[in-house]
C-alpha cells in the first residue's frame, strides 16, 4: 500500500500572489523524496498541496494537477477529507492532542470512521502503530497518560504513529526534526528508513545532510528574489544532487555558496 505521485504543471497562489511556479515531478512509490531549498522557496507549500492542507490558509488556490496513482486529487468530486486519509502528515512541531492520552492520540484518526471499534482491535492497532513508529517500548506502560508528557522526540514519533494508524498511502513530513535534538533526530531518521518499505514518504528539510542520509531522490527548490514565485530547479537521484548536480544553481546551494 503506497502510491506514486505525479505532479503536473502545478502553480500555487495565495490570493493574487503566486507562491510556486510550474512544478512537475514524478514520485515513485515506496521511496523517500526530500525537498530542499532556502527559506521561502515554496518547498513546504508544495508539500502541503499534496494533501490539500494548504487550503487551510484563506485565499490559497492551485492550478495544475496532482495525481495519486492516476487520480487527480484536485479533480471534480474529490473530497479533501478523503485525500487527507490517504496522505498522512507530520508537522514541524510535534502536535499531539493535549487533552487525549497516548492511546487516544494514536486512535484519534481511526475513531473518526470507526466509532465502535472493539477494545482488542483498538489495543492491537495502538500496538502496531506505536511499534511502527519505534515508540512502543518506551510508552507501553503509560498508554493512558497524556501525550504531552513525552519528550519532544517521543511526541514527534507519537504523531507519526497517529498518522500511520490511519493506514495512509503516502506520508508527508514537514521538517519533522527541526525542533528536535540530534539523538531524537537520529531516531526519526532511522524510522523514516523503515517507513519507506511501506509508504511513499515525502520530507521537507532544512538540513542537507539529513536529505543526503534519508532520501532516494531530492528536489531542490529556489526563489529568484522576494516577491517572486518559488521554482523547482532540479529533481534528481540524491546521490547525483549531492555529488554532481546538473544545474549550477544546485551546486552553489549544496556547496554552501548561498542560502
Amino acid at each position, binding site marked *: 500500500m503506497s502510491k506514486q505521485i505525479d505532479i503536473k504543471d502545478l502553480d500555487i497562489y495565495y490570493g493574487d500572489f503566486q507562491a510556486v511556479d510550474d512544478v512537475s515531478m514524478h514520485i515513485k512509490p515506496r521511496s523517500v523524496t526530500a525537498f530542499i531549498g532556502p527559506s521561502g522557496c515554496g518547498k513546504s507549500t508544495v508539500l502541503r498541496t499534496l494533501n490539500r492542507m494548504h487550503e487551510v490558509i484563506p485565499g490559497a488556490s492551485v492550478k495544475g494537477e496532482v495525481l*495519486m496513482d492516476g487520480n487527480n486529487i484536485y*479533480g471534480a*468530486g474529490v473530497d479533501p*477529507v*478523503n485525500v487527507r486519509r*490517504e496522505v498522512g502528515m507530520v508537522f514541524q512541531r510535534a502536535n499531539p492532542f493535549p487533552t487525549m492520552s497516548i492511546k487516544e492520540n494514536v486512535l484519534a484518526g481511526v475513531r473518526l470512521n*470507526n466509532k465502535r471499534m472493539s477494545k482488542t482491535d483498538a489495543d492491537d492497532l495502538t500496538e502496531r502503530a506505536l511499534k*511502527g513508529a519505534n515508540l512502543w517500548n518506551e510508552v507501553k506502560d503509560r498508554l493512558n497518560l497524556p501525550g504531552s508528557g513525552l519528550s519532544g522526540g517521543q511526541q514527534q514519533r507519537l504523531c507519526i504513529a497517529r498518522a500511520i494508524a490511519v*493506514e495512509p498511502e503516502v506520508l508527508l513530513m514537514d521538517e519533522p526534526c527541526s525542533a528536535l535534538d540530534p539523538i531524537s533526530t537520529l531516531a526519526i531518521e532511522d524510522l523514516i528508513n523503515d517507513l519507506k518499505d511501506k509508504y511513499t514518504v515525502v520530507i521537507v528539510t532544512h538540513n542537507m545532510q539529513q536529505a543526503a542520509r534519508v532520501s532516494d531522490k531530492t528536489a531542490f527548490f529556489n526563489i529568484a528574489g522576494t516577491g517572486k514565485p518559488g521554482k523547482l530547479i532540479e529533481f534528481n537521484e540524491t546521490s547525483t544532487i549531492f555529488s554532481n548536480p546538473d544545474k549550477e544553481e544546485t551546486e552553489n546551494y549544496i556547496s554552501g555558496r548561498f542560502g
Partner: protein
Amino acid sequence: MMLTTSDNATTKTRTLTSKQLPKATPWIIAVASIIVGIGITVVATGGFSVAIAAIIAGVINLAAVLIISGAYEGRRKAVDRVATTIVTSTFVLACVPLVSLLWLTVSKGGAAINFDLLTRTMLGMKGVLDQQYVAGEASLAGGFYHAIVGTVLITFAACVISIPIGVLTAIYLVEYAGKNRLGKAITFLVDVMTGIPSIVAGLFAFALFSTILGFVMPDATGSAKTGFTASVALSVLMIPIVVRNTEEILRLVPMDLREASYALGVPKWKTIVKVVLPTSVSGILSGVTIAIARVIGETAPIMVTAGFAKTLNWNLFSGWMSTLPTYIYDSQLRPVSPGDAALASSERAWAAALVLVILVMLLNLLARFIAKVLAPKAGR
C-alpha cells in the same frame, strides 16, 4: 505487512472522490423547510405565529439535512452538515433581535422625532396636551432637551473623575507595581469592580452621599440625589473599563522603547510622559471612548442617584437631573397622561431612544476611528 489490519471495515478500497451534494443543497433544503414549517403552523394551529413556524421549520430543516446528506454522503458528512447548519443558524437567529430592535427604534423613533423635541423640556407638560395630540388636535408637546443636557453633564463629570484615576492606576500597574502585592490586589479588585451590577454602583453613590449629608445636615434627607452623585455612580462603572483598556495598551508598548529612553538618561516619569503615553495615546483615547459609550446608556444607576427631572437643571450639585435613558424609562412606564394618550409619552420615549442609539453608535465608530487614524504610523 505490519499494518495489515484485522478488521475489514477500514481496508475497503478507498477512493478520493466521494458523493457530494450540489453546493446549493443546504439553501434549497432551508427554503423548503421554511415553507413547510409555515404550512404546518397554519394548518395545525389555525393561525400564524412566527415563533412556532420558526421552531417547526428549524426541526424539519435539521431532519432533512441529516436524512438527505446521511443517505447520500454518509454519516460523517451528514453530522458535519448538521453541525454547520446549527452553528450558522445561531448566528442568523442572533441577528433577528438586533435587526428588529434597530428597525423598531428607527421606524418608531424616526416617526416621532422632530427638532422641537430636541429643544424643549417637559416644563409645563400636562395630560391635556397629550390627549389633544392623540386626538389629532395638536402636535406632539414636550421634549427632552433637559435629558440631553443631563446626559452630557453627568457623563462629562464622570469622565473628569474616572479618566485620571483610571489612567493613573493603569500606569501604576504597568510601570510601577511590577509583581508586588498591592499591584495584584488592585488588579483583582478592578476585576471585581467590572462585575459590580450597575444598580449597586448607583446605590453605593447614593449611600455615600446620604451618609455624608447625614453628618453635615441631618435634616436634608433625599437631597443626596444630584447629578454629581450620578457621576460618581457612573465613575464606579467606568474606572475599571478605563483601567483595563489602558493597561492593555500600555503593555503593548515595547520594552526597547523604554530602555532606549533610560539609556539616554531620561528619568522614569519623563519616559512615561514623553515616550510611553504618546506611543499609546490613540489606544487610550479609543478605550476611553468605548468606556463613555458603555456608561452613557446606563439607566439604573442614574435613576437611584439623580431621580427624574422634568425640567432643565444645569447644576450638577443640586437638584434632580434626567438623562436620556432615565427619560426613556420614565416616559414609557409613567406616562404624562394615562390611558390612550400614553401613546404620546411612548412616542417621546422612542424618539429619545433613537437619539441615544445614534449617540452610542457614533461613540463606538469614533473609538474605532481614533484607534485607526491616530495610531502611531511607525508602530506597525
